[in-house]
């Protein structure tokens, strides 16, 4: 029996037994180490007679491969057995609680403002802002509300000086004035923000939010106003159809003026917008009064258009079923958590206003 055959048989039998990893490593070095049996055989190749050399080398390679494969597979077997054994010991109670985390939330008013901006963005409005403290002129006079006009009674105003020149704005309409004084027509803006009236009960809060809309161009008429608001309300409430009613009203800064009601019904104590026979007032609007345009140096014979003012808090209440306006500003942790929105829920045109 040749040496090769002997080596092969001997090691095949060794490898067939139950081995641990160090025994396998020993076999490996006995065979393939520097002076291992196989390595030694390879070194012999040069000394073998030409005629047998080829066969010898070929046999040697076959044996080498066979033994090596066997060793590899034995090693793998052992290693995976070892991992399995380790995994067996590493089992944990996965029902134990995770590390604590906190979730921040966006206030429903902020979310609603973003929703409104997103809707009006789609039809070309940009966002303008103005200061919370206003002068009497921007808040009233420029908006065609003269001194001693009973319309001023509609706004119970907070004043900052005895002369009643400085006040907390009672609506976002002064942003119209600021915008038109600053730029040239056409104007197409919305202006969301804080507004103030000295009024406080279930449905009134001394601070609330409004969004003003203004579109002034050459031929903007009441049809555009109606179309724009209809579009907005449908988009905002995420419904296909909306029942909307325009009815005449009066604001000093618009003429003709309208108040807008939307249809709703109550189902299981919840307001369903767009259906039913009940009407809910949600905004005031109208064609910007020529006196206002004159006050901001816009020629009313060339330019005309509409303006509207919407209560943001009220919209949020309707959409998200919030009953008490005062709770918006009460900062109750439970309320903020319940009605707040995840900061990643950014209302956009392409992904929609809400999930």
């Amino acid at each position: 029996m040749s040496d090769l055959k002997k080596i092969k048989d001997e090691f095949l039998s060794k490898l067939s037994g139950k081995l641990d990893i160090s025994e396998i490593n020993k076999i490996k070095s006995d065979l393939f180490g520097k002076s291992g049996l196989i390595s030694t055989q390879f070194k012999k190749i040069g000394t073998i007679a030409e005629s047998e050399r080829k066969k010898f080398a070929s046999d040697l390679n076959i044996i080498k491969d066979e033994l090596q494969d066997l060793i590899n597979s034995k090693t793998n077997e052992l290693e995976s057995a070892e991992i399995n054994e380790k995994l067996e010991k590493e089992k944990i109670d996965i029902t134990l609680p995770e590390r604590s985390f906190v979730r921040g939330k966006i206030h429903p008013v902020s979310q609603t403002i973003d929703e409104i901006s997103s809707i009006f963005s789609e039809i070309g409005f940009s966002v303008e802002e103005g200061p919370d403290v206003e002068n009497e002129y921007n808040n009233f006079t420029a908006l065609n509300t003269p001194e001693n006009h009973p319309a001023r009674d509609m706004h119970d105003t907070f004043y900052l000086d005895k002369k009643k020149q400085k006040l907390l704005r009672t609506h976002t309409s002064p942003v119209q004035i600021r915008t038109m004084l600053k730029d040239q027509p056409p104007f197409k803006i919305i202006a969301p923000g804080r507004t103030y009236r000295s009024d406080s009960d279930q449905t009134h809060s001394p601070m609330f939010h409004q969004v003003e809309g203004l579109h002034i161009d050459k031929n903007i008429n009441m049809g555009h106003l109606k179309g724009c608001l209809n579009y907005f309300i449908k988009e905002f409430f995420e419904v296909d159809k909306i029942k909307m009613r325009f009815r005449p009203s009066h604001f000093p800064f618009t003429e003709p003026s309208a108040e807008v009601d939307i249809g709703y019904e109550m189902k299981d104590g919840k307001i369903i917008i767009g259906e039913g026979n009940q009407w809910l007032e949600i905004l005031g609007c109208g064609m910007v009064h020529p006196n206002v345009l004159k006050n901001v140096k816009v020629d009313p014979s060339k330019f005309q258009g509409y303006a509207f003012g919407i209560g943001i808090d009220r919209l949020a209440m309707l959409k998200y079923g919030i009953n008490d306006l005062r709770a918006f500003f009460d900062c109750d942790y439970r309320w903020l958590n319940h009605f707040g929105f995840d900061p990643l829920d950014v209302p956009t045109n392409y992904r929609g206003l809400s999930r």
Partner: protein
Amino acid sequence: MIITFDWLKDHLKTNLKEKNLLEQLTNIGLEVESVKSLSGDNELFKVAEIIKTEKHPNADRLKVCDVNIGENEIKKVVCGAENAKEGLLTIYAPPGAIIPKTKTKLVVAKIRGVTSYGMLCSESELNLSDESDGITELSKEFRKNIGKSYFSKSKSNLIDLSITPNRPDCLGVRGIARDLAASGFGKLVDLGEKKIHSKNRHTLKVKINKERGQGCTAFGSCLITNVKNSESPKWLKDKLISIGQKPISAIVDITNYVMLDINRPLHAYDADKIEKGIIVRNSKSGEEFTALDNKNYKLESGMCVISDKKGVLGLGGIIGGTRSGTEFNTKNILLESAYFEPGSIRNTAKKLNLDTDAKFRFERGIDPLSIEDGLNKAAKLIKEICGGEISKIDIQKIETYKTKKIKFDPNIFEKISGFKISLKEMVKILVDLGFEVKKDKERLELTVPSWRPDISQGVDIVEELVRISGYEKIKFIEPIKQRKKSTLNKYQKLFHFLQRSVASKGYLEAITWSFTDKHYNDYFRDIKKEIKIINPISSELGVLRNSIFSNLILYINKNLDRGFKDLSIFEIGPIFNGSNPGEQNTVVCGLSAGKKSRLSWIEKDRNVDVFDVKRDVVQTLVEAGYNSEKFFIDNETPNYYHPGKSGRLFLNNKKNQIAAYFGEIHPNILKQIDIKTESLVGFEIFMENLELPKKTLKDLKLKFSFSDYQKSERDFAFIVNKEVKAQDLIDTISNVDESLIKDIKVFDVYEGDNIPENQKSIAISVTIQSSERTLNENDLEKINNLIIKTVEDKTGAKIRS
């Protein structure tokens, strides 16, 4: 303005039903605010007399009344009203009646142990008036009605209209009827009122003083002599009761009726109590009189008063005085029908805090040409009911009413409304509303009716035409989806970004009021000026906030009281630096209380601390696009922060504008507010101080460079004086070689054993990498030594061996 359909029918001929009426009123801008039933089963409410009262055995404030309701049986009623007394005539509601105000059904009930059969009603409970002090007191004329129903059997509902301030003409039933008729709802009834033809002289002299600011421009009057004032006839009483007014006496009821019917306020004086004629003049400062509301008013100068020789009789157009008021025994009457300037009425009423039906009408503008109509209508009724002789009418004027004319271009109607109506239709509407219309080529020449002070230009006419034609005729023009300008500017984008960035770090967004409690504001005012609100809603909301902390800390405390321990809230909004428009800043303000983590099976207990808020601030700014490597931080902070545990952050070392403060809230404030929490830390980011990022995302993403050569980390521990800041070491090291030093981390700060007193050890790990080649040991050794030498030279540090 309250009306009934029945009353409306005095002026409007219509076959339509009340339901249609309600819709139509709203459609033409006379909004129906509510529809109340005065009655329901209103026959149940009976005139009754209290015949005996006793104190309730178990309640001091209650009485047990024996009530005669015209039946054999006397009813026992428990009543809490102070004015319930023997002999009082009042209104009784039996069990089963539904109280109009509360809509509750009465049942026989035990009140503190005594059974009460029904209830004695206040005027407010019956929707008769707002009077809720005590039960209704009826005049003795009602004695003969005991046991009869108080209300007439009218089935007409109370329709409450919200009349906008531009429409004084609709503060009378006739004005409302006119609008309805114009809109096609019926036909306006011609009342065919006849003028008084009298030969009797008007013997009382009336004079309007011509003086500056005179609030009265015309004063019409007539005398009615030898009247016998009495209770009003049933039709008149029913009329007033039907809209919730309480009848008083014929003369007063008639003046009220004329005011409500044709919006012509009148005033009746007992002529015998007027001393030598009427003078309409400005008041002198300090003059006093007692008004019909039984209150004494002290006048400032320049208020429009009706006076006689003895002094003030009343405030013109607002309220009469008791001295010259009519009573049941009044014999001779002076009936006034005047015009008062809206501005003057408003100023006076505001100063005296007075509100009356007459004032409400005059300040909106009464028809200046209705003076005579009002006198005619009222005087005739008085003669009819109370008898007497009417004198000639006398009208004193210091100004004459000028009719308003408008040239109206019919084309602007479509330009504004977006729809068309025919010229014929326009003319019809305007004529029905009382305009005189002449066609003048392309235009309409319009004479505005004297009762419409709100109409002065073309657009006012457009409004009338759209309103009466119906707003439902306005088309829907779909908006075009096109954007020419970006929706948000850079500042607004940053606002949104910061808002959501902070929220994503576990803060709940709060929105609190822009005003706050002065005491809380003072804690966080620092060196800012206090801004007072002149007329705050309450003293706790008396100043504009100088910092958002004042509100947040208040609400954090409330939430702690609710049992929450670990709280993080923030607000992004204005703070105020002055009382002028624009003296405000937008601040992102966050506050965290309690612990970052509570002891659990996996986590250790740890209070929230200054480095938590520092991370929130820095991370937020980095996310918003600012380079944290350039940030400069020191410890100069306002006095509401813990002086040793707070910081001030600049975007760069030019230190131009403060980007943010962060730190622990000063322990003194916590003590004074009595806030109980393990830790309270906060931050403020000042939006206006953040330079808007110059580069857009598009620009930022263009350049991408990185190094694949091997990185090495080297650790250093320096012993430094205690005052030396970690930032100084970091800055010094990064300046050694900016091209090689990629990252610097402080991994340990240590004081104590083995470290000399007043010194500390700071251990720093520095990452070194070249973007050109792999550095060898030699290179690394060189930079190592350079770092040590530079730090030692510049900061006085010693490398720890």
